[in-house]
């Protein structure tokens, strides 16, 4: 009995130490990425190429999702607002929901699933096929050549994708609210213009999506770089990318929202 308890405690301890160790490795990896970023800026074409793969190639899923999210928001919002006779405020509801929360958060979740997994799998396979070792042996830093361009591509792409998400979401909301339900066109846009604040709503949304960009891209890169060089290792790393990125996005969103609302 005692031995079972002690082995269970030992197991918990090992897992805890392992987590702390991995967190430390991740932090060191992040610092190295920042240090080597200068080298990657000198080879800007690498970052631009990665913006295409992570940002442009994610556009379809982001924009289609945004359109549907906007339409559903308008339907649900109208359903509730009309009970209080304020269905004209539907434009504000759609815009604020998207710009403040759904734009940055849903974009980050979709980004983790679409681009994050691709980054992890690519880097994990590069490691498994010794491409990263080959680079090291050619006196070329894989962090400067492979990691940093992908990191900055993710950080640059995320706010732009979130902005496009919000824009297309508003368009989706408009199509449902105005032509379909019959909310007044002028009220829809003028209420939105009057109640969406540049600093409090738009800038805070951009700050959120920037932070999510750093978190999601860094998690994807670290998981790929740290993956055991086997098929199973890469597969587990890809799963961890989605799980950890999603949890990080939701956790960070709560923390940032508390600060932004409190400020």
């Amino acid at each position, binding site marked *: 009995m005692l031995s079972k308890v002690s082995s269970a405690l030992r197991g918990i301890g090992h897992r805890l130490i392992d987590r702390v160790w991995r967190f430390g490795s991740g932090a060191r990896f992040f610092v190295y990425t920042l240090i080597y970023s200068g080298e990657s800026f000198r080879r800007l074409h690498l970052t631009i190429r990665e913006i295409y793969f992570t940002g442009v190639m994610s556009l379809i899923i982001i924009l289609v999702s945004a359109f549907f999210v906007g339409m559903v928001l308008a339907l649900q919002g109208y359903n509730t607002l009309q009970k209080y006779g304020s269905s004209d405020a539907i434009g504000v509801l759609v815009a604020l929901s998207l710009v403040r929360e759904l734009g940055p958060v849903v974009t980050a979740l979709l980004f983790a699933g679409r681009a994050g997994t691709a980054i992890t799998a690519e880097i994990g396979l590069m490691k498994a*096929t*010794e*491409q990263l*070792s*080959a680079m*090291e*042996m*050619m*006196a070329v830093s894989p962090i400067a050549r492979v990691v940093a361009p992908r990191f900055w591509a993710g950080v640059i792409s995320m706010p732009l994708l979130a902005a496009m998400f919000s824009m297309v979401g508003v368009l989706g909301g408009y199509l449902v609210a105005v032509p379909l339900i019959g909310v007044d066109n002028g009220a829809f846009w003028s209420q939105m213009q009057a109640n969406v604040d540049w600093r409090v709503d738009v800038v805070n949304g951009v700050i959120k999506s920037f932070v999510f960009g750093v978190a999601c891209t860094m998690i994807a890169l670290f998981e790929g770089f740290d993956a055991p060089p086997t098929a199973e290792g890469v597969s587990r790393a890809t799963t961890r990318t989605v799980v950890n990125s999603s949890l990080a996005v939701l956790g960070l969103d709560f923390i940032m929202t508390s600060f932004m609302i409190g400020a």
Partner: protein
Amino acid sequence: MSDNIVEIDNLSFGYKGRLLHKGINMSFARGKVIAIMGGSGSGKTTLLRLIGGQLKPTHGKVLVDGEVVHKQNRHGLYLLRRKMGMLFQFGALFTDLSVYENVAFPIREHTDLPESIVRDLVMMKLNAVGLRGARNLMPTELSGGMARRVALARAIALDPAIIMYDEPFTGLDPISMSVTCNLIRSLNDALGATSILVTHDVKEAFSIADYVYIVANGVVETEGTPDDLRKSELPFVHQFVHGEVDGPVPFHYAAPDYKKDMLRGHDAE
């Protein structure tokens, strides 16, 4: 300048409390092809990684061109690595780059040469391995032997002083094997380089190597020219060189008594 471009001095290396190498001494003379041989899992590839500075020794040191590898900072290590070229077991070509771009990669990374000269250099290296005509192919379109030849062209792109080969003959058909064998020798002599060949293919290694080290159980079991080793009467060397099934290296992995093991039944596991 020392006659030896690489020296391994009393090197021990291990991880997770287990020593893989226990006091290894080796020296690699300039201009020679030297083979490091031994069974699977004897730490041959690890030795290459220690020479390349990808791993740090537990004790002892590796000297490359008179410099202690593990004492170098990142900049010093990268300067040392520019004297080395390494051919990985399966080539390790960058799958997002064409054959041409793979070979041009180290040239572009380390020089500011104009594109016309980069092209000339790449063509010369690809011609040396017989694959000038394959320059526009992607790595996925190459056979295993071709991929390894492209990787060899990339490894020699900057005319290194040391070329390291990690199991260059694994999984090759007889023709590709002969081609690779001849290339290793001819490129070594043409470049005036030193080649370190890690392999367990006795016939091929003995046909091109000037000197051979055989490692087993973490130590250098024996060393000498291929002719010396063919004549060796040491039991392990005899078993290894002639590929005998049983000998000092047993057929069975260490296990409890067979009869007792069977009688214990499944529940005892």
